[in-house]
């Protein structure tokens, strides 16, 4: 026998999982998962992003994969689109770097400049 409070909790909990099915405009995290990406280790990066998103109960965040982004030598590549902001491209990603990007950029809005493609070019 559920109370109104329990119903609301079920509602919130399940909505986080299936909200992806409605047309929404939230944050998109895109991981390059073509052969180059996978070979360079994109799968663990994807796994840790998903883990971090679910640990922090981030609703309105879509984690998608895409094919070859182009700069194969800099794979694994992760792109972050926050609504109203410019796309940020992170390169040479690892599981730990990905966790930091989620915590600082996705949750707090602070771009992790040292991981971006811009910084890479300067090296």
């Amino acid at each position, binding site marked *: 026998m*559920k109370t109104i409070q329990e119903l609301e909790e079920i509602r919130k909990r399940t909505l986080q999982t299936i909200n992806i099915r409605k047309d929404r405009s939230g944050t998109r995290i895109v991981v390059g998962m073509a052969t180059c990406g996978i070979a360079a280790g994109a799968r663990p990066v994807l796994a840790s992003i998903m883990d971090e998103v679910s640990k922090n109960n981030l609703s309105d965040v879509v984690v998608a994969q895409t094919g070859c982004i182009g700069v194969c030598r800099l794979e694994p590549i992760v792109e972050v689109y926050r609504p109203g902001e410019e796309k940020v491209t992170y390169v040479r990603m690892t599981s730990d770097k990905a966790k930091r990007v989620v915590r600082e950029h996705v949750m707090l809005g602070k771009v992790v400049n040292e991981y971006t493609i811009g910084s890479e070019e300067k090296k």
Partner: protein
Amino acid sequence: MKMYRSHVMICKGTGCSSSNSEQIAQNFEKELKEYGLDKEIIIERTGCFGLCALGPVVIVYPEAAFYSRVKPEDVHEIVTEHLLKGRVVKKLLYHEAIDEGRLKSLNEVPFYKKQVRRALRNCGVINPENIDEYIAFDGYKALEKVLTQMTPQEVIDTISRSGLRGRGGAGFPTGRKWQFAAASKDDQKYVCCNADEGDPGAFMDRSVLEGDPHSVLEAMAIAGYAIGSNQGYIYVRAEYPVAVKRLTIAIGQAREYGLLGKNILGMGFDFDIEIRLGAGAFVCGEETALMRSIEGKRGMPTPRPPFPAVKGLFAKPTILNNVETYANVCQIILKGPEWFASIGTEKSKGTKVFALGGKINNTGLVEIPMGTTMREIIFDIGGGIPNGRKFKAAQTGGPSGGCIPASKLDVPIDYDNLIALGSMMGSGGLIVMDDTTCMVDIARFFLEFTVDESCGKCTPCREGTKRMLEILERICSGKGEEGDIEKLEHLAKIIKDSALCGLGQTAPNPVLSTLKYFRNEYEAHIKEKRCPAGKCQALLKYTIDPSLCKGCGLCARNCPAHAISGKIREPHTIDQKKCLKCGLCMSKCPFKAISKK
């Protein structure tokens, strides 16, 4: 909280299921495990998306990639290319969903663009066998609101103000029906749901029951609160096994969560629901016959008054509403009657679900605002007539309705306009016909159905429709006589005036409607013994073209009726009086000199 990066929605409505969508679902599960993707991607079996012509349908989120006509062998490619590598498999996509290589949003696709999916809001989006998903999209929030913030009269007023009219076909104002039942004083009242859906070609209610059963359960509980009832019955036809199964699961889950049963949400309100199965009788979709059937009696209509709201099931005050009517209730409570009434026409508010069938490209289920024109439904949403043929007419209301000809394509669809045209809204079955359809044959087809389904209680229906059918059968077999049309019209008027229930009263409609707009076809059948559409076999003449005939005699030698004569190397002729119209000569002729007109 488990996070899945991708959701694969597989349609498990009856249509796609009969095209093996279960095998597709199982293949996905197997392949995902094989590639280690089963912890990141979830497979969901859902209800009907609507675009049945392109089934089996699979939609992958978050991209909303609409895969159509999927075969079990395609699953491997979708998993390895799309789910593993992120490359959408373009050649398997619904072609209208791609625009210069870019995935279009489903809402931009012509089929979905003009639709407003309210009653069908959850179909294809949730797993209907999971109550949590229904709850996530505001499920049982309306019941909560009603029990905690509204009085029964306020609920009725809300429904009345919305302008909701019965979606089963008659269009009676729902609020008024509930008001009558609420006003009747009795110790026991009942809430019934008509899920019999007997119209041939209609599957709107089936899709709601298969895709979103909880929306009906919640609405019935709200209705129970409004009129003062604690018991509901869903009368569903036995020919819908998937719907019965999903309803049973849903009721079980609702009871488990205490959303049906005693003291719902701790607010002191009791309400429970039982399922009753129909047994194949169209007449049991009629209100009073349905109630007699639940009582265990033969399904035969009883005269009204007394109306069920005063004396219905087990002689207690009862309301009976259609599945689609209930599917609209929860949103009216949550979003307000003004929201519901914001679309539609003056006297017909909200949306209507139509089942598009017949000679149309996009067969399937559509939900459109009242006031949309037939032209938009058939050509914009429906994708037009296949094989380059011309639109002739569209039948609404099934065996109780009439046809809308091409000249009336721009009439806005609503309850009153359709009646003015000589048809009716009906439950929502829309059969499209092209120039190869014979309108006399169509009238005969529908009348054959109603004659078969007549319960036999009243003479006008039992005897009258049969006599009308006999006349139509004579006409279609080339034995029509002068005066037949007048006889049909006379009989139709008498039956409409005197039959006991809606089945009989509306049975003559297809005949009257086709006579109104296609009288010339009837006259051609009777006076010229000709079927303009080329459909009625008995009226087709096999003729030999003398310019093509080489006089080889092959046809004459094979004709079982010896109806062909002629000298060798001279054109032969067929004696129409002897011809059996078997077509053997046409199939034998090596010069294609014989044709059928």
